[in-house]
């Protein structure tokens, strides 16, 4: 096979491949496998059924309800919005199941059921929580693999062996328990700044408020530059200041709550379960 030599250049942030002008390269091969992507197949769907197709010949599917433009026909997985992956197919299947159940019961499929949420304190004692709040410093553990000699000679032999239980425990301990939320109660706060002082990542600041989010972000003890992460902003406190917490690098270690003399901070577990068809719950 001949290949043209190219180099990547970025024009207006778009990657372009420019031929280098060097002679084409020849690689001999006994077999060639083309793995450059995959496409849908809808020639079995007649075009007079009321199912609209777009200019790329993909069915028009709602990304919320997964309904097509025809009644009682739903799509999901790679067939719906193009090739993605297994977990996306599963997530879309859940949504389609909700729609099908609503539809079969004569209900409005655009009226989506809300997630089931719970928020409850993990406080067990003055300095004790129902989760391991100690932050480990272990680096990520490597999953062991079977011997290459064995795996290369038998295509059925699984390469990864999986964590053993001792390693699994240590890796699990690396989780920061981000679902245990730092919940702030401004009515209990006496503005002693103890939480601001003890926070190991300096993510809590008591300061005067700003109208503009970016100005507030920049005046925090450590400027909150990760725009993808939210700020937790309290109501105005007695001194006229607000408590601002940058969620970005909070370790969920609970030290703010342990240090707080008035229990204005609490570590509360937040459970969030997306709705399933018929509001069933298994776990």
């Amino acid at each position, binding site marked *: 096979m001949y290949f043209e030599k190219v180099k990547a250049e970025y024009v207006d942030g778009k990657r372009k491949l420019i031929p280098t002008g060097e002679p084409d390269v020849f690689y001999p091969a006994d077999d060639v496998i083309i*793995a450059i992507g995959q496409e*849908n197949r809808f020639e079995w769907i007649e075009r007079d059924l009321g199912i609209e197709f777009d200019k790329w010949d993909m069915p028009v599917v709602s990304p919320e309800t997964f309904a097509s433009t025809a009644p009682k026909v739903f799509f999901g997985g790679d067939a719906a919005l193009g090739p993605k992956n297994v977990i996306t197919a599963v997530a879309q299947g859940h949504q389609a*199941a909700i729609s099908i159940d609503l539809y079969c019961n004569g209900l409005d499929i655009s009226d989506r059921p809300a997630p089931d949420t719970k928020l409850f304190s993990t406080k067990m004692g003055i300095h004790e929580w129902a989760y391991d709040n100690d932050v480990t410093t272990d680096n990520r553990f490597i999953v062991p693999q079977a011997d290459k000699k064995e795996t290369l000679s038998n295509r059925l*032999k699984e390469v*990864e062996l999986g964590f053993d239980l001792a390693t699994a425990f240590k890796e699990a301990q690396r989780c*920061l328990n981000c*679902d245990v939320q730092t919940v702030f109660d401004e009515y209990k706060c006496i503005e002693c700044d103890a939480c601001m002082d003890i926070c190991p990542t300096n993510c809590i600041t008591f300061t005067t408020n700003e109208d503009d989010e970016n100005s507030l972000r920049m005046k925090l003890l450590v400027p909150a530059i990760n725009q993808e992460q939210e700020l937790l902003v309290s109501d105005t406190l007695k001194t006229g200041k607000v408590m601002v917490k940058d969620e970005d690098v909070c370790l969920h270690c609970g030290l703010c709550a342990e240090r707080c003399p008035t229990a204005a901070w609490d570590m509360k577990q937040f459970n969030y379960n997306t709705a399933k068809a018929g509001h069933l719950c298994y776990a």
Partner: protein
Amino acid sequence: MQPTDVKNPEYYHKVVDCQYACPAHTPVPQYIRLISAGRYTEAYMINWESNVFPGVLGRTCDRPCEPACRRGRIEEEPVAICRLKRVAADFKDDITHLLPDIPKVKNGKKIALIGAGPASLSVARDLAPLGYELHIYDNQHKAGGMMRSQIPSFRLPAEVLDQEVNYVLDMGLITHFNTYVTSLKDVLSRNYDAVFIGTGAPRGKDLVLPGREEGKANIHIGIEWLASVAFDHTHNIGKRVIVLGGGNTAMDCCRTSRRLGGEDVKVQNKAS
């Protein structure tokens, strides 16, 4: 700034970066704590409710949760969320008694599911406990879709896939395997109350190049070739192999080639 509205569940949801990033919003920290506590079956069931295929995904997920993991912002590497999911699957007890009861008396509604891959099986898992009569169609002799035909066994053993596919099939699904559906009109004429289309993206892209036709005996389409290996039709390949592409399928083709006789396997990709 206005005070944060923490009554909106999406605020705290977003703080749980992994769960928020997961398309199925799997409650990740919850199951990881259960693994720490040695409660693998419960950790598995939390996963099973959200993502239906924890054993499969614990090996093969694209894991959007991991780049989102807060650990990755504190130090370099995120928590091995995906492989911890596999731990829950590997060390769970028999879970059959924890699966939902399937009503003997059906609710009178009949659903057709076209394609027996992860999307259709998820719909079936959610609807079967509600009493729906579910007819699932697939052109293969077994369910699983691309999880069976495209993911090689050295990444996902058939037993792991079979177990999780069977949890769903055993909910009383009516299977129509070895059946290629050629007309939706025909399906719709059979009085189903709803039809779900989960037929995936089964056509591998080809390249129009000089010599493509002359060399066709030794030029293969990635996903078709992987399926042919998975279904035991192809057992070997030449010593020198070129794989075009750089995605999951290309890597699986390359690794499979090495196992079927390929000694000099090159991956050619326009990404550097």
